């Protein structure tokens, strides 16, 4: 390799020695302060190595005289966040859940807290959008087995569904009419026809007429004569469009034959009361939430106007 470096005439600067199609490059010296910045970065790294964890050992690393670690930083940030949330949590602890709608700021805080708690504890069954799936209720809709006002949701969350040993748990048990031989298979098919008539999925016919008789004798005690169900015993409404285990003929026959009894943990054993309150507020906000009812009389609902102020800030 021939060294072609030469002194460039107009600038008096040495070239680097390469040449491409007559184009050469000047080897202009760097300013000396630039070199000093390199030494400066080296000095910085030495200081850094002393102050912060830097040198890896086999099982750990050098600690650094500042004692900083990412775990400690995280712990500090979590403590600060807990301290920041403490007033909100204590306000929530002192507010009965029925009173939340009267305090919009607290309600929004509860809903946001519930949103994050939901992602940790609830999405496994109910799904990330709380839309559920077959056997797991959709929490967005306007159909509630056990009641959809704030207090009812809180009770359901606290005590769970079909939890043995919990006196307040939501408990209902439909007999397995087919499997246990209470109804003949033909009767089951007739009842299925009647149930589909109730929900407007089939036209009246001989089968549904026969099924109506069987229904009145076996099913109406829980589901009501019109199949509207009842929340006090958790009996589903059979006349609406919402089916936890499916509303087509095969699914209804399966349900009558075998019955279903889903469960939900009693979250009162696992989560603190404030988190449950927040979860209830969040579930209530999903679109199906109902207004508070005065406990004994479920008829009177105070319908808020649609034009109520929604002063949710930025």
């Amino acid at each position, binding site marked *: 390799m021939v060294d072609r470096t030469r002194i460039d005439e107009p600038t008096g600067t040495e070239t680097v020695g390469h040449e491409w199609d007559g184009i050469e490059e000047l080897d202009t*010296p*760097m300013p000396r302060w*630039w070199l000093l910045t390199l030494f400066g970065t080296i000095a910085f790294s030495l200081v850094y190595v002393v102050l912060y964890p830097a040198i890896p050992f086999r099982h750990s690393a050098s600690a650094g005289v500042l004692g900083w670690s990412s775990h400690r930083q995280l712990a500090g940030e979590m403590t600060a966040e807990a301290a920041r949330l403490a007033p909100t949590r204590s306000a929530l602890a002192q507010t009965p859940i029925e009173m939340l709608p009267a305090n919009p700021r607290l309600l929004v805080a509860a809903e946001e807290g519930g949103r994050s708690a939901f992602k940790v504890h609830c999405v496994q069954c109910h799904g990330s959008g709380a839309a559920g799936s077959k056997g797991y209720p959709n929490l967005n809709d306007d159909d509630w087995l056990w009641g959809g006002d704030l207090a009812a949701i809180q009770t359901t969350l606290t005590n769970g569904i079909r939890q043995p040993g919990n006196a307040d748990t939501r408990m209902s048990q439909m007999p397995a009419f087919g499997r246990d031989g209470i109804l003949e298979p033909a009767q089951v098919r007739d009842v299925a026809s009647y149930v589909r008539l109730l929900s407007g999925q089939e036209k009246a016919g001989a089968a549904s007429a026969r099924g109506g008789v069987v229904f009145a004798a076996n099913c109406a005690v829980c589901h009501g004569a019109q199949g509207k169900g009842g929340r006090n015993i958790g009996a589903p409404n059979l006349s609406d469009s919402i089916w936890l285990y499916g509303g087509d003929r095969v699914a209804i026959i399966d349900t009558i034959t075998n019955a279903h009894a889903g469960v939900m943990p009693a979250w009162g054993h696992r989560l603190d009361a404030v988190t449950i309150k927040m979860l209830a507020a969040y579930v209530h906000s999903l*679109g199906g939430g109902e207004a508070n009812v005065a406990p004994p009389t479920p008829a009177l609902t105070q*319908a808020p106007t*649609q034009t*109520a102020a*929604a*002063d949710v800030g930025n």
Partner: protein
Amino acid sequence: MSAIDQRAGDENPNHIWFEARRRIFPKAVKGSFRRLKWAIMAVTLAIYYLTPWIRWDRGPHAPGQAALVDLAHRRFYLFAIEIWPHEFYYVAGLLIMAGVGLFLVTSAVGRAWCGYACPQTVWTDLFVHVERFIDGDRNAQFRLAQAPWTPAKIGKRIVKHAVWLVIAAATGGAWIFYFADAPTLARQLLDGTAPAVAYVTIGILTFTTYTLGGLMREQVCIYMCPWPRIQSAMLDERSLVVTYKTWRGEPRSHLKRHELPDHPESAHGSALMELAADATGTARLGDCIDCNACVAACPTGIDIREGPQIGCITCGLCIDACDAVMTRIDRPTRLIGYTTLVDEKLASTGAPVVPPLRRLLRPRFLVYFGFWASIGLAMLFSLGNRSRLDLSVIRDRSPIWVQLSDGAIRNSYTIKVRNMENRPRRVMATLSGLPGGVVWNEQGDRKLAGSSVAFFVDADKVAKVRLFVAAPRHGEEHTDFSFAVRALDDEASHDRQATVFERPEDER
């Protein structure tokens, strides 16, 4: 012997890897360009330091500072204009205008930005003047630099750097007033209760101003700034640049320093005139007397007589320096002057020169100007016609739709209504184009729902409202419709946003 060894052996032993800095002591000059620089420095520094203190009444719901970048609330205020984050394209437009403006200015008058308006130039100029005030002019500074460290020298150095640091701190201090209410922040700064970020910002800007303006100076322009490199692509032979008129100056008459007259009227002066007159004869001598006044005045330490170069920021100080000398030896001024390379060539042949303003009327300048002006006009038009109510709609995608117990389908939307007026407003959101659709919000009830909902939006705030829309089960799987919002107090404020209503796939 490998190629590397061979190269190492061929290495020039005198090769310089790093270059020591050449100290520059620019000499004070007087003249028209110096006066122009004073004026521009006064105006730019006044704008920088005083703007945050101008008040502007916007009513009770917005800050009363004329120029304010409110990062905490994400608002940008400039006199009557308020910019929201989603209107950031105005700022982007200003940046594009600034970029095109640089092209425009450069194509017309060369590196005018570098020479007069660049903060690096303005602050360096200020620092140089402070230095001159304390240490004296070029020669005194040079002597002081060579002098041993006597108490007097140490004292001068301490005073100089202290004044520099005060200027630097004031620069950093002024910067933060653009980001908070200036009088409040000033009080907080004095009694020590200002936010830590304010002190840190002042510290950083003090350091950079002191370092870049006081210590680095021309090194920034020559080594750090990308703009001089871009300039070489922006300039052409019709751009105004500071030019030494070789045809007039060469060959130089090498007058010794002591031969330079103090006064043009002196005996030496008339002798010089004879010398100059002699230049018109056969043994022609150029006007340049090689007095080095242009080099001494140059803040970047270059010799303009070597032609256009990257170190020249076109500040025009060499023009003033040379003009003073030309006046003293009774020769025409502007041996160094603003001219284009084309005109320089024309002039050297004695051809008439096009006036600088006429030089502007060329396609390149006009295209840049048209582009620059149309961006500005488009922004002004858009600013004048923007609606102060803005809507954006986000469809909830989980779940996509919800089956309701009576058979209808519900979709949920989160709408954000931006009330950009400084007063609370009642706003109505209306469905349009969704047959059988009803809408309600979290406080509402489907039983009472109609095709619109009304709610309050606070002054200068965004209302984030969750809306539920229900429509009959049967219809298009994807139905396009739109939300329209209007302010009930102001019919002119309205906005509309298209979205879609989703239904389950028809199983039949």
